[in-house]
């Protein structure tokens, strides 16, 4: 049995949309599952249901083997979660949060202190631990939230857009930490994100959700392979030969809209075409200033599945539709 099993899960808000509209997900133990989707897709609603904070309208789900509706207490004992909006009390210090969180999970004394200090250290908050959270930066709050989620060694970890608002350095650090948790401690991670690179870098498997439906699911490589081929972008030495370049390239694939001084095509065959292209250009006497090979991205997957681009799609655009 998977660490997370979701069957036909639905959540309909009373005066709102069917935010989650019958999703099925299976996440294996120790797996990092990336839940990718634009604003308003239903990611947080799914997380709230799986973490027992919101009852589903229909469908079933088990987390760590426990039913989210009938065995809420057991689920809560087995999971940790850092939600989209970190639930912190600005009048408490970081360490006081640790103490409270520990007591909620029945931890105390030396064990709690050691674990708390260790986690504060790991998220880089040792120096700020005795300051009130009201004075923390957004990134510090997120890191404290993560430490709190990990305090009781949960078997399943839910992270709802954990890197939003983090600087690149903290983001990388968090990725490393999440990867380590899954690899070394066997923690199952359910991670929502709007960032393709995040899902790509971190997730063993990705589900793309849009308007409450999972539109496609698979490993990042599978998904990218499903949209198929790589593309190549070439900038000529001599900008005047751009037209010749385009004509030559056309033999190797479908031209793509290009930016200014370069031409690009979606390759017919794949990377193996590149050698032939270089030879052809050489024969034409077109010097290559720069050549970029582009693998398909998850954005291409999303585009293919929904007809929209993931970056910058979502509620705002929906409203304009």
């Amino acid at each position, binding site marked *: 049995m998977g660490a997370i099993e979701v069957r036909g899960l639905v959540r309909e808000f009373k005066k709102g949309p069917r935010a989650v509209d019958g999703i099925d997900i299976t996440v294996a133990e120790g797996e990092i599952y990336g839940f990718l989707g634009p604003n308003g897709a239903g990611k947080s609603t799914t997380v709230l249901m799986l*973490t*027992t*904070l*919101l*009852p589903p309208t229909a469908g079933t789900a088990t987390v760590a083997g426990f039913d989210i509706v009938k065995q*809420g*207490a*057991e689920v*809560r*004992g087995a999971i940790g*979660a850092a*939600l989209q*909006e970190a*639930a*912190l*009390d600005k*009048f*408490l210090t970081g360490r*006081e949060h640790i*103490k*409270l*969180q*520990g*007591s*909620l*999970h*029945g*931890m*105390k004394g030396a064990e709690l202190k050691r674990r708390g200090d260790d986690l504060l250290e790991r998220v880089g908050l040792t120096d700020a631990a005795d300051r009130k959270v009201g004075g923390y930066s957004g990134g510090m709050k997120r890191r404290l939230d993560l430490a*709190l989620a990990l305090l*009781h060694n949960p078997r399943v970890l839910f992270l709802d857009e954990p890197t939003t608002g983090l600087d690149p350095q903290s983001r990388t650090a968090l990725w490393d930490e999440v990867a380590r948790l899954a690899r070394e401690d066997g923690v199952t991670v359910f991670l929502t994100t709007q960032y393709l690179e995040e899902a790509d870098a971190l997730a063993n498997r990705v589900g793309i959700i849009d308007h409450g439906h999972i539109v496609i699911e698979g490993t990042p490589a599978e998904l990218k392979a499903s949209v198929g081929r790589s593309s190549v972008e070439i900038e000529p030495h001599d900008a005047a030969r751009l037209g010749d370049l385009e004509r030559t390239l056309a033999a190797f694939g479908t031209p793509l809209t290009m930016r200014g001084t370069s031409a690009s095509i979606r390759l017919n065959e794949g990377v193996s075409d590149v050698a032939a292209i270089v030879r052809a250009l050489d024969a034409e006497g077109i010097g290559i200033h720069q050549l970029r090979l582009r693998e398909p991205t998850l954005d291409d997957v999303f585009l293919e599945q929904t007809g929209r681009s993931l970056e910058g799609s979502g509620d705002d655009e929906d409203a304009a539709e």
Partner: protein
Amino acid sequence: MTGFPTWWSGVSGIAARQTRAFFTNPALIIPGLLFPMLFFAAFAGGLSDLTRVPGFDYAPGYTSFQYVFVLFQSSMFGGIFIGFAVARDFENGFARRLMLATPHRSAILFGYAAAAMIRAAFTIVFVTVIALIAGLDILGSPGQIALLYVLALASNILGSLWALGIAFRFQSLSVTPFMQIPLFILLFLAPVYVPLQLLSGWIRHVADVNPATFLLEGGRALLAGSAGPVLAAWLVVIIGGIVLGIWSLTGLRAAETR
């Protein structure tokens, strides 16, 4: 890790947080103390001539008569204030952490209620010291006085359960008036300034069936060491505890299933 020790640990963790917040925040402590003190000064000082009204027969005197009122009033409002804290926790999202990390969520309810009780105990001590300075006369036996304070703390629990039921349901500070107003009305329609038998007209009819009357009269009887309507006071506590216990637990369920 979801058994009783975890539950209890959660209760004490939540109570400790609220208690720490209370004792480290003068803006919370001072009104809670000033309020009963002003009440006390105004009534016991200004109205003590009431004892000369024919029929006023409270042996320990007017200060003691008022002391019981201030005791119950501040205990109950101590319960109301915890409702404010819960509403605030829901409004700013912190309650989600509690809901998420607490396996058995009744620990949340009990934790807040325990914090309210600790706070009420502190207020009771304070009010009592002031009253002693102002000439509080205690005629009841030590056992009766102990029961008086148990009754006061029990009424604090009633206030907490009432306010928690509202806070869990509405999760917003905008409904805090609904926590306070019914209590104000109950206390207003009870024999606050004079004993029940000196009330007349419609207010007497209301006071006759007002649960707050039974608490006050019972408390006053205990303080005076007389065999007053103490049983009725305990009945109010027990029945009120059951009704408001259900009210707050169903409120918690409502918060879980929003």
